[in-house]
């Protein structure tokens, strides 16, 4: 250690230099691996480029890819499937997650241990989860069908979760809900614990019923947390690829073909790179735009 206290600016780097030195590597990496590819995608979206024919002549096709994407019934089909998936996963996860959090917050004996157990599914690899659920969903031998027979009496071999156009969308919703309800519950729990107890004490003094306390204190005060959880889940599920790809691969037919699955088919199976890039840009603009609007709404709820 040095004993003499020399003026700071003389020894060592200046604060500005350190700030620059500390931030630029991260920004450089993100520019190289996120922003440059994104710009490249934008450029490709205006061309007829095909990644499996790198030497074919590339020319500018203007907005042709965009009009083709927006008038493609398959794309609209996948957007519809995505909307269905988003609506049900978010609704189920919010209802179940909030209920779970509310119950955990009763602080019964051993609630810490049980909470940790409940959280496990959300830490697992979605791809590996999707893969082993194909096993659980096997007609007859699968645990799910067997459980359904046990509970409802419907014979286990009479239905197949991932082979039927009607049930497959629910098969992916069930797995997603199994996996991510804990996530919503954990965030809701933080919300519940952020409510100061004097508010409940005041409500007790005023003889407000428990039911009324739930609707006038608990739910409004956890709302910003619920909305934050919905934001994160919505962004993740809008991008959903891995779990669904392994569980149903978009099938049967296109019953579970979510946006990312269509994107993968166009980009890496049909190799229509330009077309897929236009679709990717549209998806990104949609997520980004919706997320921004949503964050504004969230901030309004927070400040209220």
């Amino acid at each position, binding site marked *: 250690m040095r004993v003499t206290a020399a003026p700071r600016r003389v020894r060592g780097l200046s604060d500005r230099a350190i*700030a620059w030195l500390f931030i630029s590597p991260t920004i450089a990496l*993100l520019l190289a691996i996120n922003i440059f*590819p994104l710009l490249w995608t934008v450029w490709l979206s205006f061309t007829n480029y095909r990644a499996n024919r790198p030497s074919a002549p590339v020319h500018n096709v203007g907005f042709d890819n965009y009009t083709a994407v927006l008038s493609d019934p398959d794309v609209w089909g996948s957007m519809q499937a995505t909307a269905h998936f988003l609506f049900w996963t978010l609704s189920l996860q919010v209802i179940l997650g909030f209920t779970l959090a509310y119950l955990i917050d*009763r602080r019964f004996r051993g609630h810490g241990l049980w909470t940790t157990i409940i*959280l496990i599914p959300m830490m697992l690899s979605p791809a590996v989860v999707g893969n082993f659920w194909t096993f659980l969903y096997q007609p007859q031998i699968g645990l799910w069908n067997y459980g359904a027979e046990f509970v409802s009496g419907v014979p286990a071999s009479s239905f197949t979760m991932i082979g039927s156009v009607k049930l497959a969308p629910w098969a992916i919703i069930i797995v997603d809900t*199994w996996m991510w309800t804990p996530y919503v519950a954990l965030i809701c729990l933080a919300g519940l614990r952020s409510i100061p107890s004097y508010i409940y004490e005041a409500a007790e003094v005023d003889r407000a019923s428990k039911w009324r306390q739930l609707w006038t204190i608990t739910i409004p005060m956890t709302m910003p947390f619920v909305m934050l959880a919905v934001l994160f889940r919505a962004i993740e599920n809008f991008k959903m690829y891995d779990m669904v*790809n392994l569980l149903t691969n978009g099938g049967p037919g296109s019953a579970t073909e979510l946006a990312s699955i269509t994107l993968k088919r166009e980009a890496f199976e049909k190799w229509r790179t330009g077309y897929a890039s236009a679709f990717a840009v549209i998806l990104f603009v949609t997520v980004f735009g919706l997320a921004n609007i949503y964050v504004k709404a969230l901030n309004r709820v927070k400040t209220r």
Partner: protein
Amino acid sequence: MTPQHAHSVVEPSRRSKRIAAGFVIPYAVVSMLPLIWILLTAFKSPPDSIAYPPKLVFKPSLIGFCNLFHAQSRQTADYLAAMPAPDGVCDAIARERSMVIVGPSNFVPRFLNSVMIAFGSTLLSLVLGVTAAYAFSRFRVRGKDDLLFFILSTRMMPPIAVAIPIYLMYRELGLSDTRLGMVLLYTSVNASLAVWLLKGFIDEIPREYEEAALVDGYTRLQAFRKVVLPQATTGIVATAIFCLIFAWNEYAFAVLLTSGRAQTAPPFIPIIIGEGGQDWPAVAAGTTLFLLPILAFTVALRRHLLRGITFGAVRK
């Protein structure tokens, strides 16, 4: 303390606690069933794994693990008769099914790829994350909020959308199917998480500590290294585990950008197939081994889980 003092008016009644436990515990048990089932399947023989009704009681077998670790081939009875006595448990199991072990399977290399890529990218994300987070936390940086939002927004892109140009770029640079390529890619994805989380942790360290060190004659860099870093250890460890989990679990980039040398476990486990369809005990064995580290991490992370999953937006 007497009971009257221990319970405020808002303390849930004993009855409501019992009701809550009556719902939460069964939920936890039911949500664990799929995992317990996979664990059991890992120790079943192939016929037991597809038995109807599903078997809860069965004779444990190591065949799933043997098939996971060894490549085998079917041989004629004459050939088997001419072989020397089986060497080891797996060899004996294989012989019973008239198979011969021909060598190790790809599982161990894929698993090691996962380990190396996860640790490599975590280390790099931490170095980038802790320095950037320190700068964002302590210095006035022009356009700080925009930069931070930019860092976060890189997370909103669907991986498949970025995968197209990355695929092309890696093909040009010779990074396709290399561990280095995957490390860089996962680092770029994890950097945003690391910066956001670590900024939250560093914000919580009082500035007075560093200022005292600066007065004592430390340079900024020394203060950062000797005062801030040790204080931020918990945060760094928590962030590291989150980065590890992401890289460990990632599938979309891995399946599109790797095929052999650099392939990680998530794209490999689903394609483990035995004779005549998927070899469920082997898949379950691979899945079990793959998920075990995550279970340990989840327990270790309990206290910081919330922060990690919300990018530091919720801190409890």
